[in-house]
Protein backbone atom coordinates (compact mmCIF):
# COMPACT_ATOMS: atom_id res chain seq x y z
CA UNK A 1 0.00 0.00 0.00
CA UNK A 2 1.07 3.51 -0.72
CA UNK A 3 2.50 5.36 2.28
CA UNK A 4 0.86 8.59 3.38
CA UNK A 5 3.01 11.59 2.67
CA UNK A 6 0.52 14.18 3.80
CA UNK A 7 -0.69 13.85 7.35
CA UNK A 8 -2.73 15.62 9.96
CA UNK A 9 -1.02 19.00 9.52
CA UNK A 10 -2.28 19.13 5.93
CA UNK A 11 -5.78 18.14 7.05
CA UNK A 12 -5.79 20.94 9.63
CA UNK A 13 -4.42 23.41 7.11
CA UNK A 14 -7.03 22.55 4.47
CA UNK A 15 -9.73 22.92 7.12
CA UNK A 16 -8.45 26.27 8.44
CA UNK A 17 -7.93 27.66 4.93
CA UNK A 18 -11.50 26.75 4.04
CA UNK A 19 -12.77 28.13 7.33
CA UNK A 20 -11.22 31.54 6.65
CA UNK A 21 -12.65 31.57 3.15
CA UNK A 22 -16.10 30.77 4.54
CA UNK A 23 -15.85 33.39 7.30
CA UNK A 24 -14.81 36.06 4.84
CA UNK A 25 -17.54 35.11 2.41
CA UNK A 26 -20.25 35.21 5.09
CA UNK A 27 -18.94 38.51 6.43
CA UNK A 28 -18.73 40.07 2.98
CA UNK A 29 -22.24 38.92 2.17
CA UNK A 30 -23.57 40.23 5.49
CA UNK A 31 -22.00 43.58 4.75
CA UNK A 32 -23.35 43.63 1.19
CA UNK A 33 -26.99 42.92 2.06
CA UNK A 34 -28.65 46.22 2.81
CA UNK A 35 -31.94 47.42 4.27
CA UNK A 36 -32.65 51.14 3.78
CA UNK A 37 -29.06 51.68 2.58
CA UNK A 38 -27.66 50.30 5.83
CA UNK A 39 -26.05 46.87 6.17
CA UNK A 40 -28.74 44.64 7.65
CA UNK A 41 -26.28 42.38 9.42
CA UNK A 42 -23.47 44.77 10.36
CA UNK A 43 -22.62 42.90 13.56
CA UNK A 44 -22.38 39.60 11.71
CA UNK A 45 -20.12 41.26 9.15
CA UNK A 46 -17.92 42.69 11.88
CA UNK A 47 -17.56 39.42 13.75
CA UNK A 48 -16.73 37.64 10.48
CA UNK A 49 -14.18 40.28 9.59
CA UNK A 50 -12.50 40.00 12.99
CA UNK A 51 -12.25 36.20 12.75
CA UNK A 52 -11.56 35.63 9.04
CA UNK A 53 -7.80 36.15 8.70
CA UNK A 54 -6.67 34.11 11.71
CA UNK A 55 -7.43 30.51 10.70
CA UNK A 56 -5.72 30.91 7.33
CA UNK A 57 -2.73 32.62 8.94
CA UNK A 58 -2.33 29.77 11.41
CA UNK A 59 -2.96 27.21 8.67
CA UNK A 60 -0.28 28.69 6.43
CA UNK A 61 2.13 28.53 9.34
CA UNK A 62 1.36 24.83 9.81
CA UNK A 63 1.81 24.29 6.09
CA UNK A 64 5.26 25.82 6.22
CA UNK A 65 6.16 23.66 9.22
CA UNK A 66 5.11 20.57 7.27
CA UNK A 67 7.70 21.26 4.56
CA UNK A 68 10.91 19.24 4.53
CA UNK A 69 12.85 22.51 4.61
CA UNK A 70 10.53 25.04 6.19
CA UNK A 71 12.91 27.98 5.71
CA UNK A 72 12.79 27.42 1.96
CA UNK A 73 9.10 28.35 1.81
CA UNK A 74 10.07 31.69 0.26
CA UNK A 75 10.98 29.77 -2.89
CA UNK A 76 7.23 29.33 -3.46
CA UNK A 77 7.15 33.04 -4.20
CA UNK A 78 10.22 33.09 -6.41
CA UNK A 79 8.31 31.15 -9.05
CA UNK A 80 4.90 31.23 -10.59
CA UNK A 81 4.01 27.94 -12.22
CA UNK A 82 0.47 28.00 -13.56
CA UNK A 83 0.50 24.23 -14.08
CA UNK A 84 1.05 23.60 -10.38
CA UNK A 85 -2.04 24.02 -8.20
CA UNK A 86 0.21 24.52 -5.19
CA UNK A 87 2.02 27.42 -6.85
CA UNK A 88 -1.23 29.16 -7.81
CA UNK A 89 -2.62 28.36 -4.37
CA UNK A 90 0.23 29.87 -2.41
CA UNK A 91 -0.15 33.15 -4.28
CA UNK A 92 -3.91 33.07 -3.86
CA UNK A 93 -3.58 32.33 -0.17
CA UNK A 94 -1.13 35.18 0.38
CA UNK A 95 -3.26 37.75 -1.42
CA UNK A 96 -6.37 36.53 0.39
CA UNK A 97 -4.67 36.76 3.79
CA UNK A 98 -3.52 40.31 3.10
CA UNK A 99 -7.00 41.37 1.95
CA UNK A 100 -8.59 39.65 4.96
CA UNK A 101 -6.28 41.49 7.38
CA UNK A 102 -7.00 44.82 5.67
CA UNK A 103 -10.70 44.05 5.87
CA UNK A 104 -10.33 43.29 9.58
CA UNK A 105 -8.53 46.59 10.04
CA UNK A 106 -11.29 48.45 8.26
CA UNK A 107 -13.77 47.13 10.83
CA UNK A 108 -11.82 48.30 13.90
CA UNK A 109 -13.30 51.21 15.81
CA UNK A 110 -11.20 54.22 16.67
CA UNK A 111 -10.86 53.06 20.28
CA UNK A 112 -9.65 49.66 19.19
CA UNK A 113 -7.08 51.18 16.88
CA UNK A 114 -5.96 53.46 19.68
CA UNK A 115 -5.60 50.45 21.96
CA UNK A 116 -3.49 48.54 19.42
CA UNK A 117 -1.24 51.48 18.60
CA UNK A 118 -0.95 52.21 22.32
CA UNK A 119 1.10 49.01 22.56
CA UNK A 120 3.62 50.27 20.02
CA UNK A 121 6.43 52.56 21.28
CA UNK A 122 5.70 56.19 20.45
CA UNK A 123 9.14 56.61 18.87
CA UNK A 124 8.16 54.28 16.01
CA UNK A 125 6.67 57.15 14.07
CA UNK A 126 6.42 55.35 10.74
CA UNK A 127 4.27 52.65 12.31
CA UNK A 128 1.96 55.19 13.93
CA UNK A 129 1.32 56.71 10.54
CA UNK A 130 -0.66 53.55 9.77
CA UNK A 131 -3.22 54.53 12.37
CA UNK A 132 -5.76 55.71 9.82
CA UNK A 133 -9.45 55.18 9.44
CA UNK A 134 -10.15 52.95 6.44
CA UNK A 135 -13.72 52.07 7.37
CA UNK A 136 -14.79 53.64 4.08
CA UNK A 137 -12.96 50.83 2.25
CA UNK A 138 -15.04 48.08 3.85
CA UNK A 139 -17.27 47.53 0.86
CA UNK A 140 -14.43 47.70 -1.64
CA UNK A 141 -12.27 45.32 0.39
CA UNK A 142 -15.22 42.97 0.74
CA UNK A 143 -15.73 43.03 -3.02
CA UNK A 144 -12.04 42.44 -3.73
CA UNK A 145 -11.98 39.65 -1.19
CA UNK A 146 -15.05 37.79 -2.50
CA UNK A 147 -13.37 36.18 -5.50
CA UNK A 148 -10.24 35.44 -3.46
CA UNK A 149 -12.24 33.79 -0.68
CA UNK A 150 -14.03 31.61 -3.24
CA UNK A 151 -10.67 30.96 -4.88
CA UNK A 152 -9.14 29.80 -1.59
CA UNK A 153 -12.18 27.62 -0.91
CA UNK A 154 -11.91 26.01 -4.34
CA UNK A 155 -8.13 25.76 -4.22
CA UNK A 156 -8.11 23.47 -1.20
CA UNK A 157 -10.13 21.05 -3.32
CA UNK A 158 -8.20 21.60 -6.54
CA UNK A 159 -4.94 20.84 -4.74
CA UNK A 160 -6.24 17.30 -4.34
CA UNK A 161 -8.52 17.08 -7.38
CA UNK A 162 -5.78 18.00 -9.86
CA UNK A 163 -3.68 14.94 -9.03
CA UNK A 164 -4.38 12.57 -11.90
CA UNK A 165 -2.69 9.61 -10.26
CA UNK A 166 -5.12 9.41 -7.32
CA UNK A 167 -8.51 8.25 -8.61
CA UNK A 168 -10.23 9.02 -5.30
CA UNK A 169 -9.48 12.72 -5.81
CA UNK A 170 -9.28 13.08 -9.53
CA UNK A 171 -12.84 14.09 -10.30
CA UNK A 172 -14.20 17.50 -11.15
CA UNK A 173 -16.52 17.37 -8.12
CA UNK A 174 -13.94 17.58 -5.33
CA UNK A 175 -13.27 21.29 -5.80
CA UNK A 176 -16.95 22.21 -5.44
CA UNK A 177 -17.39 19.82 -2.54
CA UNK A 178 -14.55 21.49 -0.66
CA UNK A 179 -15.80 24.97 -1.58
CA UNK A 180 -19.31 24.40 -0.21
CA UNK A 181 -17.95 22.61 2.82
CA UNK A 182 -15.67 25.62 3.43
CA UNK A 183 -18.49 28.12 3.04
CA UNK A 184 -20.79 26.17 5.36
CA UNK A 185 -18.11 25.77 8.03
CA UNK A 186 -17.45 29.53 7.78
CA UNK A 187 -21.14 30.29 8.38
CA UNK A 188 -21.22 27.75 11.22
CA UNK A 189 -18.11 29.18 12.89
CA UNK A 190 -19.62 32.64 12.68
CA UNK A 191 -22.86 31.39 14.22
CA UNK A 192 -20.89 29.68 16.98
CA UNK A 193 -18.89 32.82 17.74
CA UNK A 194 -21.97 35.09 17.70
CA UNK A 195 -23.94 32.79 20.01
CA UNK A 196 -21.03 32.38 22.41
CA UNK A 197 -20.38 36.14 22.56
CA UNK A 198 -22.44 36.95 25.65
CA UNK A 199 -21.54 40.63 25.77
CA UNK A 200 -23.41 41.27 22.53
CA UNK A 201 -26.23 38.72 22.52
CA UNK A 202 -27.09 37.56 19.03
CA UNK A 203 -30.40 38.76 17.64
CA UNK A 204 -32.93 36.48 16.01
CA UNK A 205 -32.64 37.94 12.53
CA UNK A 206 -28.88 37.41 12.67
CA UNK A 207 -29.23 33.77 13.70
CA UNK A 208 -31.75 33.32 10.95
CA UNK A 209 -29.40 34.80 8.36
CA UNK A 210 -26.51 32.52 9.35
CA UNK A 211 -28.70 29.43 9.65
CA UNK A 212 -30.20 30.09 6.22
CA UNK A 213 -26.74 30.53 4.74
CA UNK A 214 -25.64 27.26 6.31
CA UNK A 215 -28.68 25.35 5.07
CA UNK A 216 -28.00 26.53 1.53
CA UNK A 217 -24.32 25.51 1.65
CA UNK A 218 -24.92 22.15 3.33
CA UNK A 219 -27.61 21.33 0.76
CA UNK A 220 -25.27 22.24 -2.08
CA UNK A 221 -22.56 20.09 -0.49
CA UNK A 222 -24.96 17.16 -0.28
CA UNK A 223 -25.87 17.61 -3.93
CA UNK A 224 -22.19 17.29 -4.76
CA UNK A 225 -21.47 14.29 -2.55
CA UNK A 226 -24.31 12.22 -3.99
CA UNK A 227 -23.18 12.65 -7.61
CA UNK A 228 -19.60 12.04 -6.47
CA UNK A 229 -20.63 8.61 -5.20
CA UNK A 230 -22.94 7.79 -8.12
CA UNK A 231 -20.56 9.03 -10.77
CA UNK A 232 -17.69 7.15 -9.15
CA UNK A 233 -19.64 3.90 -9.13
CA UNK A 234 -20.38 4.36 -12.83
CA UNK A 235 -16.76 5.16 -13.60
CA UNK A 236 -13.72 3.04 -14.42
CA UNK A 237 -12.41 0.19 -12.31
CA UNK A 238 -9.71 2.29 -10.63
CA UNK A 239 -12.25 4.88 -9.46
CA UNK A 240 -14.60 2.15 -8.22
CA UNK A 241 -11.77 0.55 -6.29
CA UNK A 242 -10.90 3.93 -4.82
CA UNK A 243 -14.51 4.50 -3.77
CA UNK A 244 -14.41 1.16 -1.98
CA UNK A 245 -12.32 2.96 0.63
CA UNK A 246 -15.54 4.64 1.80
CA UNK A 247 -17.97 1.96 0.60
CA UNK A 248 -16.70 -1.07 2.46
CA UNK A 249 -13.11 -0.09 3.20
CA UNK A 250 -11.25 1.45 6.13
CA UNK A 251 -13.05 4.82 5.88
CA UNK A 252 -16.60 3.52 5.57
CA UNK A 253 -17.68 4.13 9.14
CA UNK A 254 -16.13 7.56 9.51
CA UNK A 255 -17.60 8.67 6.18
CA UNK A 256 -21.18 7.52 6.74
CA UNK A 257 -21.42 7.92 10.51
CA UNK A 258 -19.52 10.89 11.90
CA UNK A 259 -19.22 12.78 8.60
CA UNK A 260 -22.36 12.28 6.52
CA UNK A 261 -24.94 11.68 9.25
CA UNK A 262 -23.54 13.62 12.21
CA UNK A 263 -21.65 16.29 10.29
CA UNK A 264 -24.14 17.00 7.51
CA UNK A 265 -27.61 15.46 7.88
CA UNK A 266 -28.14 16.09 11.60
CA UNK A 267 -27.17 19.81 11.49
CA UNK A 268 -29.18 20.17 8.28
CA UNK A 269 -32.15 18.62 10.08
CA UNK A 270 -31.74 20.92 13.07
CA UNK A 271 -31.43 24.02 10.91
CA UNK A 272 -34.37 23.12 8.70
CA UNK A 273 -36.44 22.44 11.83
CA UNK A 274 -35.48 25.88 13.10
CA UNK A 275 -36.28 27.61 9.83
CA UNK A 276 -39.42 25.66 8.92
CA UNK A 277 -42.04 27.65 10.88
CA UNK A 278 -40.54 30.94 9.79
CA UNK A 279 -40.56 30.08 6.11
CA UNK A 280 -43.62 27.90 5.63
CA UNK A 281 -46.00 28.90 8.39
CA UNK A 282 -45.24 32.57 8.71
CA UNK A 283 -44.50 32.20 12.41
CA UNK A 284 -41.57 33.58 14.29
CA UNK A 285 -38.15 32.00 13.87
CA UNK A 286 -37.25 29.75 16.83
CA UNK A 287 -33.67 30.92 17.31
CA UNK A 288 -32.93 28.29 19.94
CA UNK A 289 -29.47 28.91 21.35
CA UNK A 290 -28.55 25.31 22.15
CA UNK A 291 -29.76 23.98 18.83
CA UNK A 292 -27.73 26.64 17.03
CA UNK A 293 -24.64 25.70 19.03
CA UNK A 294 -25.11 21.98 18.36
CA UNK A 295 -25.67 22.46 14.64
CA UNK A 296 -22.70 24.80 14.27
CA UNK A 297 -20.39 22.48 16.21
CA UNK A 298 -21.44 19.47 14.15
CA UNK A 299 -20.94 21.34 10.87
CA UNK A 300 -17.41 22.27 11.90
CA UNK A 301 -16.68 18.67 12.87
CA UNK A 302 -18.08 17.51 9.52
CA UNK A 303 -15.92 19.98 7.63
CA UNK A 304 -12.82 18.72 9.39
CA UNK A 305 -13.71 15.05 8.84
CA UNK A 306 -14.36 15.60 5.13
CA UNK A 307 -10.80 16.81 4.75
CA UNK A 308 -9.45 14.07 6.97
CA UNK A 309 -11.18 11.37 4.92
CA UNK A 310 -10.12 12.86 1.61
CA UNK A 311 -6.49 13.47 2.48
CA UNK A 312 -5.94 9.99 3.87
CA UNK A 313 -8.18 7.90 1.60
CA UNK A 314 -6.98 9.75 -1.49
CA UNK A 315 -3.37 8.90 -0.82
CA UNK A 316 -4.28 5.22 -0.48
CA UNK A 317 -5.97 5.14 -3.88
CA UNK A 318 -3.91 4.53 -6.98
CA UNK A 319 -3.88 3.07 -10.47
CA UNK A 320 -1.30 0.52 -9.41
CA UNK A 321 -2.22 -3.07 -10.00
CA UNK A 322 -2.16 -5.17 -6.88
CA UNK A 323 1.50 -6.19 -7.08
CA UNK A 324 3.22 -6.13 -3.72
CA UNK A 325 6.77 -5.33 -2.82
CA UNK A 326 8.68 -8.50 -2.08
CA UNK A 327 9.71 -8.67 1.55
Amino acid at each position, binding site marked *: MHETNWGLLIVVYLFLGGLSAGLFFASGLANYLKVDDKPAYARVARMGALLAPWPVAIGSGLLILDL*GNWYRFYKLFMHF*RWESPMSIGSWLLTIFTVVAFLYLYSWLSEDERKWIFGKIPASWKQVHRLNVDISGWRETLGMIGFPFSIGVGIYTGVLLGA*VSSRPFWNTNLVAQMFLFSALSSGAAALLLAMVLDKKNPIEKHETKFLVTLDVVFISLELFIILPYLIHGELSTQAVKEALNLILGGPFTFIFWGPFLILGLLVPLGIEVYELFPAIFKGREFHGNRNLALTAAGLVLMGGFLLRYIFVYAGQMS*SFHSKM*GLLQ
Partner: protein
Amino acid sequence: MAMKKKRYALVIDSRKCLNCKACVVACKAENKVPVGHFRNRINEERKGEYPTLSINFEPEQCHHCDQPSCVRVCPTGASWQRKDGIVLVNYDECIGCRYCMIACPYDARYFNEEEGVVDKCTFCVQRVDKGEVPACVETCPSKVRVFGDLEDPKSRIRELLATRRYKVKEPQTGNGPQLYYLL
Protein backbone atom coordinates in the same frame (compact mmCIF):
# COMPACT_ATOMS: atom_id res chain seq x y z
CA MET B 1 29.02 19.48 -34.15
CA ALA B 2 25.33 19.81 -33.50
CA MET B 3 24.04 17.76 -30.59
CA LYS B 4 21.76 14.99 -31.69
CA LYS B 5 18.41 14.75 -29.92
CA LYS B 6 18.32 12.00 -27.35
CA ARG B 7 15.56 10.17 -25.49
CA TYR B 8 16.73 7.74 -22.87
CA ALA B 9 14.53 4.80 -21.91
CA LEU B 10 14.74 1.40 -20.31
CA VAL B 11 13.54 -1.92 -21.63
CA ILE B 12 12.85 -4.57 -19.01
CA ASP B 13 12.59 -8.25 -19.86
CA SER B 14 10.99 -9.23 -16.59
CA ARG B 15 10.80 -12.94 -17.48
CA LYS B 16 14.55 -13.08 -17.02
CA CYS B 17 14.40 -11.55 -13.54
CA LEU B 18 15.57 -13.84 -10.72
CA ASN B 19 14.70 -11.42 -7.92
CA CYS B 20 18.36 -11.38 -6.82
CA LYS B 21 18.11 -7.63 -6.08
CA ALA B 22 21.59 -6.91 -7.37
CA CYS B 23 20.05 -3.86 -9.12
CA VAL B 24 18.69 -2.57 -5.81
CA VAL B 25 22.06 -2.97 -4.11
CA ALA B 26 24.03 -1.51 -7.02
CA CYS B 27 21.75 1.54 -7.04
CA LYS B 28 22.12 2.08 -3.31
CA ALA B 29 25.91 1.84 -3.57
CA GLU B 30 26.21 4.04 -6.66
CA ASN B 31 23.85 6.78 -5.47
CA LYS B 32 24.43 6.56 -1.70
CA VAL B 33 20.72 6.07 -1.08
CA PRO B 34 19.97 6.48 2.65
CA VAL B 35 19.10 3.47 4.79
CA GLY B 36 15.42 2.58 4.61
CA HIS B 37 14.92 4.05 1.14
CA PHE B 38 15.23 2.60 -2.35
CA ARG B 39 15.25 4.10 -5.81
CA ASN B 40 14.27 0.85 -7.47
CA ARG B 41 12.40 -2.21 -6.35
CA ILE B 42 11.20 -5.60 -7.53
CA ASN B 43 7.46 -6.17 -7.47
CA GLU B 44 6.25 -9.69 -6.99
CA GLU B 45 3.08 -11.21 -8.35
CA ARG B 46 1.95 -14.68 -7.32
CA LYS B 47 -0.76 -16.55 -9.18
CA GLY B 48 -2.47 -19.72 -8.03
CA GLU B 49 -1.52 -22.40 -5.54
CA TYR B 50 0.98 -25.21 -5.79
CA PRO B 51 1.12 -27.16 -8.11
CA THR B 52 -0.43 -24.67 -10.55
CA LEU B 53 1.63 -21.76 -9.35
CA SER B 54 3.33 -18.98 -11.23
CA ILE B 55 5.36 -16.13 -9.93
CA ASN B 56 6.36 -13.01 -11.74
CA PHE B 57 9.10 -10.58 -10.76
CA GLU B 58 8.89 -7.10 -12.14
CA PRO B 59 11.61 -4.53 -11.48
CA GLU B 60 10.35 -1.00 -11.23
CA GLN B 61 11.76 2.48 -10.69
CA CYS B 62 11.09 5.99 -11.99
CA HIS B 63 9.52 5.70 -15.44
CA HIS B 64 11.06 8.99 -16.63
CA CYS B 65 7.72 9.80 -18.20
CA ASP B 66 7.21 11.91 -21.31
CA GLN B 67 4.64 14.11 -19.53
CA PRO B 68 5.71 13.65 -15.92
CA SER B 69 2.95 14.64 -13.48
CA CYS B 70 5.57 15.20 -10.75
CA VAL B 71 7.15 17.97 -12.83
CA ARG B 72 3.77 19.50 -13.57
CA VAL B 73 2.68 19.82 -9.95
CA CYS B 74 6.00 21.00 -8.49
CA PRO B 75 5.41 24.55 -7.16
CA THR B 76 9.03 25.66 -7.40
CA GLY B 77 10.25 23.90 -10.53
CA ALA B 78 12.61 21.74 -8.48
CA SER B 79 11.33 18.64 -10.28
CA TRP B 80 12.42 19.05 -13.86
CA GLN B 81 13.10 17.14 -17.02
CA ARG B 82 16.21 17.19 -19.13
CA LYS B 83 15.98 17.40 -22.89
CA ASP B 84 16.99 13.74 -23.07
CA GLY B 85 13.91 12.81 -21.00
CA ILE B 86 15.59 12.15 -17.66
CA VAL B 87 13.47 13.48 -14.78
CA LEU B 88 15.52 14.96 -11.95
CA VAL B 89 15.14 16.86 -8.69
CA ASN B 90 17.06 20.07 -8.16
CA TYR B 91 17.79 19.61 -4.46
CA ASP B 92 18.51 23.30 -3.87
CA GLU B 93 15.06 24.30 -5.08
CA CYS B 94 13.10 21.48 -3.40
CA ILE B 95 11.12 22.72 -0.39
CA GLY B 96 10.00 19.21 0.62
CA CYS B 97 6.25 19.65 0.13
CA ARG B 98 5.99 16.08 -1.25
CA TYR B 99 3.33 17.06 -3.77
CA CYS B 100 5.33 15.22 -6.45
CA MET B 101 5.29 12.00 -4.41
CA ILE B 102 1.53 12.20 -4.29
CA ALA B 103 1.31 13.00 -7.99
CA CYS B 104 3.53 10.10 -9.09
CA PRO B 105 1.34 7.18 -10.24
CA TYR B 106 4.23 4.75 -9.77
CA ASP B 107 5.28 5.61 -6.20
CA ALA B 108 8.79 6.05 -7.55
CA ARG B 109 9.87 8.83 -5.20
CA TYR B 110 10.95 8.87 -1.58
CA PHE B 111 11.38 11.58 1.01
CA ASN B 112 14.90 12.03 2.35
CA GLU B 113 14.10 13.12 5.92
CA GLU B 114 17.69 14.07 6.68
CA GLU B 115 17.97 16.54 3.82
CA GLY B 116 14.27 17.45 3.82
CA VAL B 117 14.05 16.92 0.08
CA VAL B 118 12.45 14.42 -2.28
CA ASP B 119 14.68 12.05 -4.20
CA LYS B 120 14.34 9.44 -6.90
CA CYS B 121 16.03 7.39 -9.62
CA THR B 122 18.17 9.60 -11.83
CA PHE B 123 18.99 6.96 -14.46
CA CYS B 124 22.46 7.48 -12.95
CA VAL B 125 23.01 10.72 -14.91
CA GLN B 126 26.55 10.90 -13.58
CA ARG B 127 27.31 7.67 -15.47
CA VAL B 128 25.08 8.26 -18.50
CA ASP B 129 26.73 11.60 -19.20
CA LYS B 130 30.07 9.78 -19.38
CA GLY B 131 28.63 7.35 -21.90
CA GLU B 132 28.13 4.54 -19.41
CA VAL B 133 24.89 2.77 -18.50
CA PRO B 134 23.06 3.08 -15.15
CA ALA B 135 24.39 0.96 -12.30
CA CYS B 136 21.30 -1.27 -12.16
CA VAL B 137 21.71 -2.07 -15.85
CA GLU B 138 25.39 -2.82 -15.62
CA THR B 139 25.12 -5.11 -12.63
CA CYS B 140 22.10 -7.22 -13.67
CA PRO B 141 23.40 -10.82 -13.93
CA SER B 142 20.57 -12.08 -16.13
CA LYS B 143 20.53 -9.05 -18.44
CA VAL B 144 16.94 -8.08 -17.64
CA ARG B 145 17.58 -4.42 -18.34
CA VAL B 146 18.52 -2.73 -21.59
CA PHE B 147 19.22 1.00 -21.40
CA GLY B 148 19.47 3.14 -24.49
CA ASP B 149 18.55 6.08 -26.65
CA LEU B 150 15.22 5.80 -28.45
CA GLU B 151 16.36 8.39 -31.00
CA ASP B 152 19.29 6.26 -32.10
CA PRO B 153 18.02 3.93 -34.86
CA LYS B 154 20.92 1.52 -34.41
CA SER B 155 20.45 1.06 -30.65
CA ARG B 156 19.62 -2.30 -29.08
CA ILE B 157 16.61 -0.75 -27.34
CA ARG B 158 15.13 0.34 -30.69
CA GLU B 159 15.66 -3.12 -32.10
CA LEU B 160 13.95 -4.76 -29.12
CA LEU B 161 10.95 -2.45 -29.25
CA ALA B 162 10.64 -2.97 -33.03
CA THR B 163 10.79 -6.76 -32.89
CA ARG B 164 9.23 -7.71 -29.55
CA ARG B 165 5.83 -7.13 -28.00
CA TYR B 166 5.85 -4.95 -24.90
CA LYS B 167 3.67 -3.01 -22.45
CA VAL B 168 4.02 0.06 -20.32
CA LYS B 169 2.47 0.33 -16.86
CA GLU B 170 -0.68 2.34 -16.24
CA PRO B 171 -0.66 4.24 -19.56
CA GLN B 172 -4.13 5.55 -18.67
CA THR B 173 -2.63 8.13 -16.33
CA GLY B 174 -1.39 9.95 -19.42
CA ASN B 175 2.15 10.28 -18.11
CA GLY B 176 3.78 8.53 -21.05
CA PRO B 177 6.00 6.16 -19.02
CA GLN B 178 9.32 5.15 -20.54
CA LEU B 179 9.96 1.79 -18.88
CA TYR B 180 9.07 -0.80 -21.50
CA TYR B 181 8.25 -4.27 -20.22
CA LEU B 182 8.77 -7.03 -22.80
CA LEU B 183 6.01 -9.62 -22.91
